[in-house]
């Protein structure tokens, strides 16, 4: 089961773009990369997932390096509501989600 490494915290001002990196050097070929975020008193919420290259949705974009050992979650134009803990997870089919400590993103007005 691959492990992930993320920075413990990041700070940004409203309107800035935030890029959260994640290292998953032992990722298996069967594993996908997922990003979740969690605000206080709520369960984690799915943001985006990918296998390789570049994925974008209405909330965020995800860039995955060619060797799949590094991914970067990009949050454009953050607002105060984007303040949360962001988790990068690698998961294979039929496996559980294994969470690390995540990255606490603080957003200032």
């Amino acid at each position, binding site marked *: 089961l691959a492990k992930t490494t993320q920075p413990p915290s990041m700070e940004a001002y409203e309107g800035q773009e935030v890029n959260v990196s994640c290292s998953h050097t032992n990722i298996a070929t069967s594993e996908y990369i*997922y990003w*979740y975020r969690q605000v206080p*008193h709520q*369960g*984690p*919420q*799915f943001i985006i997932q990918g296998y390789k290259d570049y994925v974008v949705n209405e909330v965020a974009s995800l860039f995955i390096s060619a060797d799949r050992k590094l991914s970067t979650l990009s949050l454009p134009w953050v607002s105060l509501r984007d303040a949360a803990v962001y988790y990068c997870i690698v998961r294979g089919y039929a496996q559980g*989600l294994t*969470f690390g400590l*995540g990255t606490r993103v603080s957003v200032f007005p």
Partner: protein
Amino acid sequence: EAGVTQSPRYAVLQEGQAVSFWCDPISGHDTLYWYQQPRDQGPQLLVYFRDEAVIDNSQLPSDRFSAVRPKGTNSTLKIQSAKQGDTATYLCASIGTEVFFGKGTRLTVV
């Protein structure tokens, strides 16, 4: 679609008391997870089911914790004799194309 429902939202116990947490997953999702999340930590997997079968309960403290999903739908997680170290939020998640989490039950053991 309806989300994952958990109850109760909060529980406060004295050490030695028992408590049960209930989870109603999204209809049609055959895989269900229970996580324990201590304060300021990431969720840690306790047990997960596919339908009514336990797939992995290796992280479940079996002497005091138990989990069932008898009909492959709703699930119950029980702590037989709570300890202060059990203070945490207990999260339930169900699996479809994505993993959906409930809001959790925040347990405080005093």
